[in-house]
């Protein structure tokens, strides 16, 4: 609902805004509009960069160090991490488009409030959908779905990108950043679930741990033990740290002088 409402509005208001501005400003705006109306292929090199940059060079978690809290809290298992990544992607893509459409009408003084309202209504939507179709995961994620509202990545991209770019580019930026966030989430969750509980997506891939050595199978029969530290949140920080370490060793661009 929120999306439809917002989609229709800008067209009407645009005209009103235009009338009010002075001549000099109008000229500027025409120039601006003319500039941006240049035909650009949907997946031009620039636009593709919007999608791929956040995966590595401009990753929200490892380079911008945003959204760390949720990376700590919901990466104990893979399944919630994947769901969280998808939820953030839906919220970011939609909110980026909406704010981008509204960008010329939002008074800059109250823009944070407007952005919050947009994000909050989208998050409420996502939360309801998850409760309806994936109740177990939604219960595991508990408060962290609601906390997407305060996820720095969402607000950061709205402020930094959607307020100054056209809807399509904003959409790509939202998807790209959410993908960069989700990528790290999944990597961290992979190691934490594999080493912490010997499972992946809930399947015991390292064998079954019985009460005694004789009842165990797989690696556990050899005396292997799960690493309990992996289940505690400090280990998520350490895994993220190791990812940053490896990324910076491989990607020399990221090293500050």
């Amino acid at each position: 609902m929120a999306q439809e409402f917002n989609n229709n509005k800008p067209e009407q208001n645009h005209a009103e805004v235009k009338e009010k501005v002075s001549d000099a400003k109008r000229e500027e705006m025409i120039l601006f509009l003319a500039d941006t109306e240049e035909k650009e292929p949907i997946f031009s090199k620039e636009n593709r960069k919007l999608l791929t940059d956040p995966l590595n060079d401009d990753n929200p978690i490892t380079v911008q160090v945003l959204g760390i809290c949720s990376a700590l809290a919901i990466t104990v298992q893979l399944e919630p991490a994947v769901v969280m990544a998808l939820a953030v992607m839906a919220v970011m893509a939609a909110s980026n488009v909406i704010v981008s459409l509204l960008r010329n009408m939002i008074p800059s003084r109250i823009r944070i409030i407007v952005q919050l309202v947009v994000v909050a209504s989208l998050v409420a939507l996502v939360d309801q959908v998850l409760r309806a179709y994936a109740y177990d995961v939604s219960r595991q994620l508990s408060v962290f779905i609601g906390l997407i509202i305060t996820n720095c990545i969402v607000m950061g991209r709205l402020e930094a990108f959607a307020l100054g770019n056209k809807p399509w580019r904003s959409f790509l930026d939202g998807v790209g950043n959410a993908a960069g966030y989700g990528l790290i989430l999944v990597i961290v969750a992979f190691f934490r679930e594999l080493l912490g509980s010997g499972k992946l997506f809930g399947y015991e891939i390292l064998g079954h741990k019985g009460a005694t050595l004789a009842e165990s199978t797989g690696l556990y029969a050899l005396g292997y033990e799960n690493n309990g530290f992996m289940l505690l949140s400090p280990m998520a920080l350490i895994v993220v740290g190791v990812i940053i370490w490896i990324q910076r060793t491989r990607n020399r661009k990221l090293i500050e002088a």
Partner: protein
Amino acid sequence: MEWIRQKLDKFKKPFGKGEKLEKYAPAVNAIDTFLYTPNHTTQKGAHVRDAVDLKRVMITVVLSMIPVLIFGMWNTGYQYLSQIQAEVGFWEALGHGASKVVPMIVVSYAVGLGIEFAFAVMRGHEVNEGYLVTGLLIPMIMPVDIPLWMLAVSVVFAVLIGKEAFGGTGMNILNPALTARAFAFFAYPTFMSGNQVWVSEASNVDAVSGETILGSLAAGEQVNYSVMEMFMGYIPGSVAETPTLLILLCGLFLIFTKVGSWRIMLSAFIGAAVMALIFNALNIEGNELTNFPWYQHLLVGGLAFGIVYMATDPVSGAQTTRGKWIYGFLIGLFSIMIRIFNPAYPEGVMMAILLMNVFAPTIDHYVIQANVKRRKKRKEKGINPQIDTAV
């Protein structure tokens, strides 16, 4: 000696400048400098004429650890054999202990030095002697029954995350040996606490009472050991943490050779005593640890070992004189506080030292700032600010 030199030089030839194996030179040079003194001299900057270098400091610490280690081996055997037979011979106990502890030392050195050598080759710097101490400390602070692969994983974590991530020897913010123990403690809690792990093969022997004193106190049980036994170290515990008397003597050796800081050691014991006295006075109902006499708090657990060998680590500890007093005092204070308030973490000294490692630079910063302020004030008053070295 000459024969070894010749063999080494011959062996080193393919690793020299311009030869094909030059990349691996740091690894070979490490063996060379371990056996002989390094043959390079300072080229520029300040020259200090002193016999002390990193190698000598590290060797001194290792020397001071050897007696404690041998006692630890003996105690390991004694704790096990005394449960199954009446008379325990000295060599019998030592032999049994050595058969348990030596593999731990070998694993610790092999894994740790392997990583150090790999990083030295990758980064092209020399291997430092730092790991000689860490590698010996790690087996000494682990329960004897820990599986060797867990020890290896802990060593990997300590060297990689605790040390190499920060830039190697001399750059670490946490004590690597304690990092290894903390990792093992959180990763494999069933192998690091409880009443099965402190005596070797306890799970195979029926009716073994292998609980540490702090563990049984936390469980609300009575302690069956005399004060003398606690002081001498004939009690279950991590491999070499029990002999308080011997540790203190070796601590004196460290102080005498000016390798360990007496300020940290003394203030840490004072801090622990103060905290234990406070709790003795409070006497909280239902917590046996608060009723434990304060002087016995100083004798049991890893308090003495941690203070003498780990708190005095010159890299991760405080550097300033006044800072050392604060740093040590807080270590003692927090050790007893964690021990009493959280029975799940009887080894409070590990947490306390790691915590204060993190705060050591902050302490130093404020000590230096306070000194700067004091001297500024004195300058305003017109007194010569030059003479004041008590930082």
